[in-house]
């Protein structure tokens, strides 16, 4: 295999296209400015991943505090309000600031590589999503420092508990922070999804037909559609809640005609597709890994994709199974119960197909494969308890008990997080250019697998013997202690496993002792593995012309007519866009505006800075508009690269 070399066009050459209204940082910026202004999908992906891993640690610490508080009866590590804040923040953090952005990290980094594109369709918008995600994460966690502390309303924020009428601390600002941070995070997710949809529909390399797309890319597409169709419901619900809290409207105020039921419906119309938004990326990752480590193509490719789409579609038709105990009546509960059971079928298909893929293969047990297998088994258990909950009589006992806690942690940790960790072990060599230590990886897997099961399996039993969710304490004599103690020990083992894993991920970028990965360390099948590791900024020196589904595999082992060809490089070489400050400015404006909207009284900061909330909001809004105007006027910019590539 020959190496690639790059010949940079001099920045002063004529090929530099740039309008001078607002100069953009050129291609030679380095260090912090490079990372702040980058519009490279790979760097954005890394930033997403790194931030999400940080929030994973934060949410994990919250989880360990929760577990410590439940060590025995009547513990006083946390007060009840602190505990309620912990589980609210833990839930919100893990869903919106960990699993979703971790998926987004892979979407960003891997998806354009898998379709043979040089970047996403709208690179600057991609950066804006990243900074909006940052702003949302910061906004949510700022709540700790203001009146009332963090929100204590649960990640579901059921009305009317969020109403100011029922605030337990005078002028509690927690729910306001919660509302606004979710709104910003919603903007981030929506923008990213528009981008991914456009990219996958429009930026595929020649010959990359829809039915040749790698499964992970397909799942990206489905998840993006789920996001753009599901997030509006929560955005509107949050807007209504914000109006209720700020302007005294009556959307959820039952004393003045509103209906708390409506909140639940709107929340779960978003919330159930959200579950699939969290799990489908992991399924996509696992569907990539299993064929590679079995050295066989995916069994039933079409069916896996079709069932993914069906799951996504049906995800919009089953939201009320979260509300079986709210008194919806016999007909509605029965209908939603049956629909929910039906979802088990496409999910089952996926598991059958993964096993079918391994059948007759040559299975290697490297760390990514172990995590993928962990995913299958744990997700299976989570899925089975899910089938139980779809049955209304069973759900009547399980709802809001620890059984449900066990169920969704099996799906979200055993499922989503194991899948994402599998993705890290699989693709990090492509990102960092170095292979990770297999032994350490297997240790991480062992710790996580054991810790996870020790933590969450006993919770099924705890739920059945009557421990309710979201309670900071339990009384003596219920027999809850022993199993809670086992769960707490397991949680710490799991925490240690995750912490070592995160250390391993981050250090693989800096540890020069690690072996270089080479182009295709796993002998994998999709075209991102035909690129050098780490991937060059232009991704593909020559755009590949795709001939088959598992292109990298066919290049190595397939018949000649299935080998990929390459497009000739045009006169202008590879057009690379310039860096840009505008997304950062726009997101900053949004952040400041939201902070202004949040506060109701004058803000004083050490006598240096006194402003009314409106002034801050207007200042932020202006910055936001300025960012957009600059964005519109700065023009595409860019420079040209002429990477030399010698054919292998």
């Amino acid at each position, binding site marked *: 295999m020959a190496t690639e070399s790059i010949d940079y066009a001099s920045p002063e050459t004529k090929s530099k296209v740039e309008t001078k209204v607002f100069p953009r940082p050129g291609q030679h910026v380095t260090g912090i400015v490079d990372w702040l202004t980058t519009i490279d999908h790979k760097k954005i992906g890394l930033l997403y991943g790194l931030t999400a891993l940080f929030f994973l640690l934060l949410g994990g610490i919250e989880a360990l505090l929760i577990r410590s508080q439940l060590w025995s009866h009547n513990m006083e590590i946390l007060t009840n309000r602190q505990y309620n804040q912990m589980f609210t923040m833990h839930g919100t953090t893990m869903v919106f600031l960990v699993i979703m952005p971790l998926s987004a990290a892979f979407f960003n980094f891997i998806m354009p590589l898998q379709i043979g594109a040089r970047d996403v369709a709208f690179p600057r918008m991609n950066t804006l999503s990243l900074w909006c995600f940052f702003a949302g994460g910061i906004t949510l966690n700022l709540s700790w420092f203001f009146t009332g502390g963090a929100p204590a309303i649960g990640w579901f924020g059921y009305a009317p508990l969020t109403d100011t009428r029922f605030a*337990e601390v005078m002028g509690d600002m927690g729910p306001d922070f919660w509302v606004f941070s979710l709104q910003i995070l919603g903007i981030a997710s929506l923008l990213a999804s528009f981008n991914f949809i456009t990219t996958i529909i429009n930026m595929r390399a020649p010959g990359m037909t829809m039915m040749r797309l790698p499964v992970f890319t397909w799942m990206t597409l489905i998840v993006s559609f789920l996001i753009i169709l599901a997030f509006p419901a929560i955005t509107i619900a949050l807007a209504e809640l914000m109006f209720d809290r700020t302007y005294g409207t009556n959307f959820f105020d039952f004393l003045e005609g509103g209906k708390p039921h409506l909140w639940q419906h709107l929340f779960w119309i978003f919330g159930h597709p959200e579950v699939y938004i969290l799990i489908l990326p992991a399924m996509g990752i696992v569907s990539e890994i299993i064929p590679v480590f079995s050295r066989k193509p995916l069994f039933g490719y079409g069916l896996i994709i079709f069932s993914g789409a069906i799951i996504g579609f049906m995800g919009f038709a089953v939201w009320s199974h979260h509300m079986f105990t*709210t008194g919806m009546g016999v007909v509605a509960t029965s209908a939603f119960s049956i629909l929910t059971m039906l979802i088990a079928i496409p999910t089952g298909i996926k598991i059958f197909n993964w096993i079918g893929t391994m059948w007759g293969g040559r299975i290697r047990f490297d760390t990514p494969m172990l995590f993928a297998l962990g995913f299958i088994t744990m997700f299976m258990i989570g899925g089975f308890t899910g089938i139980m909950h779809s049955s209304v009589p069973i759900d009547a006992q399980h709802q809001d008990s620890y059984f449900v806690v066990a169920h969704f942690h099996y799906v979200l940790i055993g499922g989503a997080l194991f899948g994402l960790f599998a993705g890290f072990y699989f693709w990090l060599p492509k990102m960092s250019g170095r292979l990770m230590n297999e032994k350490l990886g297997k240790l991480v897997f062992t710790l996580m697998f054991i810790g996870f099961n020790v933590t969450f399996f006993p919770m099924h039993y705890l739920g059945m013997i009557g*421990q309710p969710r979201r309670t900071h304490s339990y009384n003596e004599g219920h027999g809850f202690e022993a199993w809670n103690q086992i769960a707490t020990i397991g949680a710490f083992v799991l925490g240690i496993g995750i912490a070592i894993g995160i250390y391993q991920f981050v250090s693989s970028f800096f540890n020069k002792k690690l072996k270089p990965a080479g182009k295709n360390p796993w002998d994998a099948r999709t075209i991102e593995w035909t690129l050098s590791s780490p991937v060059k900024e232009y991704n593909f020196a020559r755009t590949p012309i795709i001939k088959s589904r598992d292109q990298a595999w066919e290049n190595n082992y397939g018949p000649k007519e299935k080998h990929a060809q390459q497009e000739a490089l045009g006169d202008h070489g590879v057009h690379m866009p310039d860096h840009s400050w505008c997304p950062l400015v726009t997101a900053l404006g949004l952040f400041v505006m939201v902070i202004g909207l949040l506060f109701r009284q004058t803000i004083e900061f050490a006598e240096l800075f006194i402003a009314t909330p409106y002034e801050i909001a207007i200042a932020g809004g202006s910055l936001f508009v300025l960012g957009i105007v600059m964005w519109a006027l700065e023009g595409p910019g860019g420079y040209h690269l002429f990477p030399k590539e010698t054919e292998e």
Partner: protein
Amino acid sequence: MRRLLALFTRATIATILFTTLFGCSRVDHKQSALDPKGLVSQNQYDVFMLSVWITIFLFCAVGGCLLYVLWKYRAKSKEEAMEIPPQSHGNSKIEASLILISALILVILAIPTLQGVVLMNRVPDANDEETLKKLNLDRSQIEGAITVNVTGKRFFWVFEYPQFGIVTANELVFPANKAVRINLRTEDVIHSFWVPKLAGKMDLMPGQENFMWFIADQEKILSGKPTTEAMPSVFDGKMRQTVFAKQKFSDEFEPVGGLFYGQCAEFCGNSHAYMSFRALAQTDQDFDSWVKRFQNSQNPNLQPSAYNPEEMYNQGAIVTFADKSLGEQAQREYRSTKKIAKAEAPNLSEKSWIKAHSDDYELGKQLFSSLQCVQCHAVNRTGIGAKGPNLTLYGLRTSLAAGWMRNDEKSLSTWLRNSNEVKFGNLMWNGEGVDDTHPLRQLENDDEKVNQLIAYLLGQI
């Protein structure tokens, strides 16, 4: 490779061991859904166990298949790992049959599910003999059903019996042999009514009335023991005695069959965890006696009034006389020891009237007003809409603070002195209009007042 596989197998075995362990451990915990004592919860348990067996079967089938594949097709050497197996892409016949099988399995679960939904939501018709027979119910059990209006408040429960015109709080007394219809309402946020041994939960939604019902199974409650032991009567305090004697607040729980534990299951604020309650099953007779006692206690016409010379009093009648020793304008309750004729002058020394209660009780009663307890708590009246739990016949209750503590002198003393220490954020300590100047918050070191209040409260029998 082999070591890893072994590890994986071991992990799976550990999981199975876990399951077995659970199978062996006790399931009759206070709040266990695995120990159903009623028709509805039994049905829910049966459907649950069906689903457990189905999923264990599926887990073994699919998991076994997975293990087999992992073992059979593992790459045994570096060379083998680089081999290229046949590149098959799928098999539509296998896929189709697997889809069909999974759909069939779901049907097995779907049918009892639908039956269960109907059972949960509708009390069977008393005239529908076929259904009653199937459920093994007697017509009278449905016809004699009682109705309870449950109102959830942060953080306690109000139980109103509209048929009998009585109101109690935190301890739901019901006949073990009759259907109980529950209407659920809330005055603030969402709560959820859950007595796992009797029925699954149902939410209390603001602005909406929800319905659920349950019927206990007297045989299961007694499980061969005599009534006095398993289901002692509430109205004369036997239940309280039995529970105190048997049920220690420790890990060693010994169930009294008729005592059920319930809990609010929907997050409702700071003290959500403390919002528990109890349900006490009674024989039909004992229940009737309890209702009688309550009706008498809460009947405004039967409250003791000042002695009236124009009236005739039966033996045991209670009237009030002024008693300066208790304070200015204080009234004390006296009980007649014999039949008192009209205009027979009250002779307190001649033992025709004796003090009905101890001095502490009477002083406690005065404190109950002067410390502003009455503003929130109703005693001997229904007091619908009161902010705090109704305390009528409080001395018969087994628990204190919405089922959180045992209702004895010691706990009550702890509770009265500083309830915030017990239940942080409770509204008696933190509610509207209660601040550091409130008399309630001055009780911490006032042994005398606390003892008087305890005498008054536990004297409500």
